[in-house]
């Protein structure tokens, strides 16, 4: 892209504004001293202080982080394995596998939630942490697989041949060549999965049980009793954490070792 016509520049600025204005207003209001409405009554940190003291919110935040870590971790282990397994299969099997794999990412989340709930009830599974983690894995797994496979496909098969020729067993190839080269994709998938899990409301809403309230559920229940500035502060924290994670995820995938084996000279 050499020179953009100025009208496109204006358009892209407007789009950015459209996308981020609500978030900016939300963050702004979280520093508003007013307890009601949007009128500015001066700058304050009090809502954040209140937030930090609220046992219910802290507990929900801890729940969210634990669930996000576990569901992401398990999705990584299963997802990386699946991705490697799929890439070594023949091409023909891949196309329909592709379709099936990304399906959980595109079907309406509410259906996913209802379906999962039905399965859990049918199997008489106690609703709680376990069911939320499983529910989050349903979208974390395809996410991981898609990201890792994209990277796998860029790896030169000659590297594996070279390693085998130098005496590497299949296990050596995996631990010394494949996994290290997949590292950026694995980190990227982990951060993205962590964020999606942290922010998920719909699936969590269906499969959560008593005593397993996550942050989004907490926000929802608080809103039901009325919008408070405390919610603004909590939302601002969640937005910033999510954006940091996604930004980091993007950055580690960009800053990866060059995957081309041919010299750039």
């Amino acid at each position, binding site marked *: 892209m050499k020179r953009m016509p100025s009208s496109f520049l204006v358009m892209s600025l407007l789009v950015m504004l459209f996308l981020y204005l609500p978030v900016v207003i939300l963050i702004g209001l979280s520093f508003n001293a007013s307890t009601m409405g949007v009128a500015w009554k001066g700058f304050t940190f009090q809502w954040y202080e209140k937030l930090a003291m609220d046992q219910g919110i802290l507990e929900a935040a801890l729940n969210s982080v634990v669930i996000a870590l576990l569901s992401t971790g398990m999705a990584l282990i299963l997802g990386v394995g699946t991705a490697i397994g799929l890439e070594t299969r023949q091409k023909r099997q891949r196309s329909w596998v592709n379709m099936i794999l990304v399906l959980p990412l595109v079907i309406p989340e509410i259906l996913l939630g209802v379906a999962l709930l039905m399965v859990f009830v049918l199997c008489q599974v106690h609703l709680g942490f376990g069911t939320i983690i499983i529910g989050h894995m349903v979208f974390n797994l395809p996410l991981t697989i898609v990201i890792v496979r994209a990277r796998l496909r860029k790896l030169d098969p000659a590297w594996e041949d070279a390693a085998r*020729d130098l005496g590497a067993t299949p296990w050596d190839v995996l631990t010394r060549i494949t996994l290290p080269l997949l590292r950026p994709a694995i980190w990227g998938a982990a951060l993205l999965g962590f964020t999606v899990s942290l922010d998920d409301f719909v699936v969590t809403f269906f499969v959560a049980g008593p005593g397993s309230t996550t942050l989004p559920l907490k926000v929802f229940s608080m809103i039901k009793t009325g919008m408070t500035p405390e919610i603004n502060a909590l939302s601002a924290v969640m937005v910033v954490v999510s954006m940091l994670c996604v930004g980091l995820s993007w950055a580690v995938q960009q800053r990866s070792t060059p995957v081309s*084996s041919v010299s750039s000279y």
Partner: protein
Amino acid sequence: MNESVVLDKVTKTHGLVKAVDHVSLSIQSGEFFSVLGPSGSGKTTILRLIAGLDRPDQGDIVIQQRVVTLDPPHKRPVNMVFQHYALFPHLSVFENVAFGLRMKGESQAMTQKAVSQMLALVRLQGKEKRLPGHLSGGEQQRVALARALVNRPIVLLLDEPLAALDQQLRQEMQGELKRLQREVKATFICVTHQQDEALMLSDRIAVMQGGKVLQVGTPREIYDCPVSSTVAQFIGLSNVLSGTIAHCEDGLCRVEHEVLAPVKVVCSPHDSLQGAVTVMVRPERVHVSSDMSANGYDNMFTAIVHQVVFSGNEVVYHVRLRGEVIWIARVPIAEARARPLTVGQPVYVQWRAQEGLVLPAHSTPC
């Protein structure tokens, strides 16, 4: 002399294509052996079979009197230099070269010493910590060589080792390869599609096409006595005429061409050629001049200069004979300067009977 690698009636199919078709080769230890062929001739598959990266459908592979047909790559005393080097991009030069030793479980001290020695041998001291992506093409090539040779393989396999390098580097690395082979005393098996490379480097060459070996011999044998017109054409630019044998006597044949006057060629006595044949004359053996030389050339045709190509140390003339037959002659620059020819000029094309080669027209690979 003992054999280093033997392929015994080896066949490998990729899908429906026979990549390697009943190939038998016997490579002596310490030899620089080249497999020469166009792309898709199955030459890379031969290397992969010897390395153990592919398994043959039929036949056996023997390395140092041991049948290794079913052995995995890490159980073979063989290492390979891959076409685009396949250096591990996340490992430093040192770690790339050390990879094989680490897999063998060598001690840290021993690894350190062997890698340093090897990097010195390929003249890469001081670059240990670089990543492959930050090296030039020539340097990457040296790392790939060091990475293979540090394991002291009995056989080193090279897949188009110089193809990715520019002309000047290629010539430099050709000398380098010969030097390395003398120093490590291993058998080198090199796959290439560049005939000049094969001719310069090799002790012996196998010419391959369509999964079959057409001929095995020293560069001289292959260049001077190709068994078929395919080999002859592949090994160097040649002038070709097809015709029929009309008469043979005392080792001298007359080959009749449909437009040109009969061509005289010397036949070796053990050839019992009949019928359709191909006559080939190498461009450097063809004499082109504006006057009729009396130097006892057996064949003489009139022609028109069609194109003049200057290439530094020689001039290549494309001349048109009767019946649109284009003939190529390579003339040393000194001679071309002394008696210059220009496009459109009528000339005489001459060559001696013993400089022509006569081969069966539809020769079958041996």
